[in-house]
């Protein structure tokens, strides 16, 4: 019953999306605002209907309606309630519906919030977003329908993929999709600005919060995914550079470029075309990645189950979108000639440009690495792999350049910096960074990238800290305030700037985590029977016993390991789980996290009676990665607090 309601609601939403696409166009053609208002109402109602449709699908899961094919394939009677509700996005069809629902929600919010403030561009914005929504809903309704009934319903479902029965995986997709879909709003405003030839940047001010929101959602989504890979896949790492991950990383990189480059347009009215290019690229990459993954173009060797019709449709959708966007950009951009006047390469404008160069080069590297195997396969008869070693050697140096610019950008003045100024700002940080090299060497970092990363982390944190302390001291002297009060007022007056700096600090913390876990991971691969012990770092681990445990829908072998070091004793219980409906066992790593390192134990296969294979890792500083991403979230939230209040020039 509910599934029919959901299906009908989605069909109606598709119809309303067509209206959302067409009515504003008609309104502009015949100069009748009533039509535009019809489009706006259609956006609201489409959102309500898709909310109903998503709820209908979730209710079908909650009521174990296995006559629905999608439910039967992604749930079972014993699946815990929490995962039952979230299984809605556990498969291709449902996650597309979730995507469409987010889109309609954001469109409705945009139609509500920007209606009064943007009367000129609103009809175009609505129409463009309507077209996108139509594109998605056509896919949901005709090519990947989650509403299909089975003629012969099974008594129990096939259960959710065990790897997805995990809190990390529950939250990973929604955040990622919110990030992807969120970029649709700034994209639509940018396109509207192009069409109406109002590229002077009002669209950037209007969509600043949307951009920040989308970017932080994308960040959180990516980090959730990495965290999930870390503790659920049991291989001691968190990022494998596979096409799915790369797909989310590319828009993240161009998104960062956009966030920086728009500041230049806001302040100096420059780079108008470039900013349009960046937001179009960011949104296009958001779509490209998902589509790449779903069309089956990039799949592993033995994943045969892809629907050719879906791939063709997705390609057509992408073609229309890309040609429309970039075609419009190339034909209309000449009308946007800004008053570009760069006075000096020693300026913030120029450092942001170089920052953009590095970020776009980084995104292109990831794109190249992702598409290269496809190109080789298509254009020749060979087949190649591009894996982590490639990215470690090519992508990391580019990002090291980026790290350097991160230290320069916020502290170099706009327009032109004098030699004296440069010396004052950067001499001390440079000395600190270089002095860090021998210290890093003594710490045991011998890898050139590790050394460079550490020196740059020191350089960047020194520039940032000096900037903050300098300004605090200035305020303390000028307004005779205490240090915390001065800091509070300074941050309060310019949340954008200090939010940005906080994000930079978060990145630095993450870089420390990357270096620590990347260069100093220690691992042991060995067989243990109860009573055996081993040493790893300053830990002494003893396998105390092996046992079994079970929950509603799985059984597991469980090892009990006592880990001791001076002043600390913990018990670790890694598991090897077998879910009822799935034969492939999953590993549940046991992780003991401290700020210094993670102790990470994976239970492998039994070797003979009472002897088991184990993999034991010591991952230094890995918690810093998760902590750093939290700081980034705080920083972006701070920057979002500040509305359109003008920014103040500092120093």
């Amino acid at each position, binding site marked *: 019953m509910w599934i029919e309601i959901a299906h009908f609601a989605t069909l109606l939403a598709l119809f309303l999306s067509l209206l959302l696409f067409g009515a504003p166009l008609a309104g502009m053609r015949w100069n009748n605002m009533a039509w535009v208002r019809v489009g706006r109402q259609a956006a609201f109602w489409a959102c309500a209907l898709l909310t109903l449709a998503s709820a209908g699908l979730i209710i079908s899961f909650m009521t174990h309606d296995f006559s629905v094919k999608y439910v039967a394939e992604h749930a079972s009677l014993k699946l815990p309630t929490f995962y039952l509700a979230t299984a809605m996005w556990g498969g291709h069809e449902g996650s597309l519906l979730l995507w469409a629902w987010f889109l309609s929600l954001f469109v409705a919010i945009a139609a509500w919030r920007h209606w009064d403030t943007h009367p000129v561009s609103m009809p175009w914005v609505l129409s463009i977003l309507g077209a996108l929504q139509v594109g998605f809903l056509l896919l949901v309704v005709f090519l990947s329908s989650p509403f299909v009934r089975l003629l012969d319903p099974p008594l129990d479902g096939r259960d959710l993929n065990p790897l997805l029965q995990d809190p990390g995986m529950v939250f990973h997709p929604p955040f990622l999709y919110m990030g992807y879909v969120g970029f649709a709003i700034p994209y639509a405003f940018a396109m509207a600005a192009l069409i109406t030839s109002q590229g002077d940047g009002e669209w950037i001010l209007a969509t600043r919060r949307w951009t920040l929101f989308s970017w932080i959602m994308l960040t959180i989504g990516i980090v959730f995914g990495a965290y999930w890979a870390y503790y659920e896949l049991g291989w001691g790492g968190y990022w494998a550079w596979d096409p799915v991950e790369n797909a989310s990383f590319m828009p993240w990189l161009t998104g960062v470029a956009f966030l920086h480059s728009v500041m230049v347009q806001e302040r100096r009215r420059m780079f108008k075309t470039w900013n349009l290019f960046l937001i179009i690229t960011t949104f296009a990459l958001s779509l490209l990645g998902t589509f790449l993954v779903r069309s089956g173009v990039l799949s592993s060797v033995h994943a045969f189950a892809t629907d050719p019709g879906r791939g063709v449709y997705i390609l057509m959708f992408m073609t229309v979108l890309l040609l429309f966007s970039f075609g419009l950009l190339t034909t209309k951009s000449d009308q946007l000639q800004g008053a570009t006047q760069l006075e000096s390469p020693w300026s913030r404008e120029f450092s942001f440009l170089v920052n953009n160069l590095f970020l776009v080069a980084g995104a292109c590297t990831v794109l190249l690495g992702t598409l290269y195997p496809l190109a080789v396969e298509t254009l020749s008869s*060979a087949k190649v792999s591009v894996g982590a070693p490639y990215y470690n050697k090519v992508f990391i140096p580019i990002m090291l350049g980026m790290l350097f610019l991160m230290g320069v950008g916020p502290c170099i003045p706009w327009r032109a910096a004098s030699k004296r100024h440069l010396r004052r700002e950067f001499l001390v940080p440079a000395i600190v960074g270089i002095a860090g090299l021998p210290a890093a060497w003594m710490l045991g970092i011998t890898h050139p990238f590790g050394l460079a990363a550490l020196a740059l982390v020191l350089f960047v944190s020194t520039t940032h800290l000096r900037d903050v302390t300098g300004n605090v001291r200035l305020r303390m002297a000028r307004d005779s305030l205490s240090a915390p009060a001065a800091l509070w007022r300074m941050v309060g007056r310019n949340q954008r700037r200090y939010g940005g700096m906080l994000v930079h600090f978060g990145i630095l913390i993450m870089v420390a985590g990357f270096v620590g876990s990347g260069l100093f991971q220690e691992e042991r691969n060995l067989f243990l029977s109860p009573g055996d012990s081993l040493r790893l770092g300053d830990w002494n681990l003893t396998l105390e016993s092996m046992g079994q445990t079970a929950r509603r829908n799985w059984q597991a072998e469980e090892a009990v390991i006592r880990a001791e070091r001076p002043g600390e004793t913990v018990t670790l219980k890694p598991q090897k789980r077998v879910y009822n409906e799935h034969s492939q066992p999953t590993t549940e790593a046991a992780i003991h996290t401290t700020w210094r390192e993670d102790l990470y134990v994976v239970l492998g296969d039994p070797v003979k009676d009472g002897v088991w294979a184990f993999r034991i890792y010591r991952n230094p500083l890995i918690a810093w990665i998760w902590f750093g991403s939290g700081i980034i979230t705080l920083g972006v939230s701070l920057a979002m607090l500040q509305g359109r209040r003008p920014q103040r*020039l500092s120093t």
Partner: protein
Amino acid sequence: MKSPAAACLLAALLLALPVGAATRDEDPTEALVRHIAKDLRCAVCQNQSVYESNSDLAKDMLRVIRDKVREGQSEGVIRDYFHQRYGDYIYLEPTTGGMNRLLWLGPFVGLLAGGWALLAAMRKWRAKPTATPGNDPPPAAPDAAMQERIRQELEQMRL
């Protein structure tokens, strides 16, 4: 019923396991096994290495690598063994010859070309005479609120 090879392996493992609880460390050959297996692709996975994947094929490939390392074969020989059977596809790190140069050098060439283009553009922009060295005129058609905001901003441009 096990194959003789499997029986041998099992026997070897059992011999390697001393009786009774003890402090253990991993087999000294394991570091080389890991080093080799981390650079070979699990043939059925999406960009996961043989070492990191949980798939059956990866586990068996790891076992083959381990056997070969314990037989005393060198890294090069073992890598060649897999390359002969699975082709370039098996290397997670693509080779540097032929077409793959595009992959390895492309990003850096792009970066250099971009840097060069930036500097060239910089020269062009600087050559352009700037009418007023002061602030840019306000945008063409903003509403009154926007004008007001810009005015405020200009006023506040002092710390």
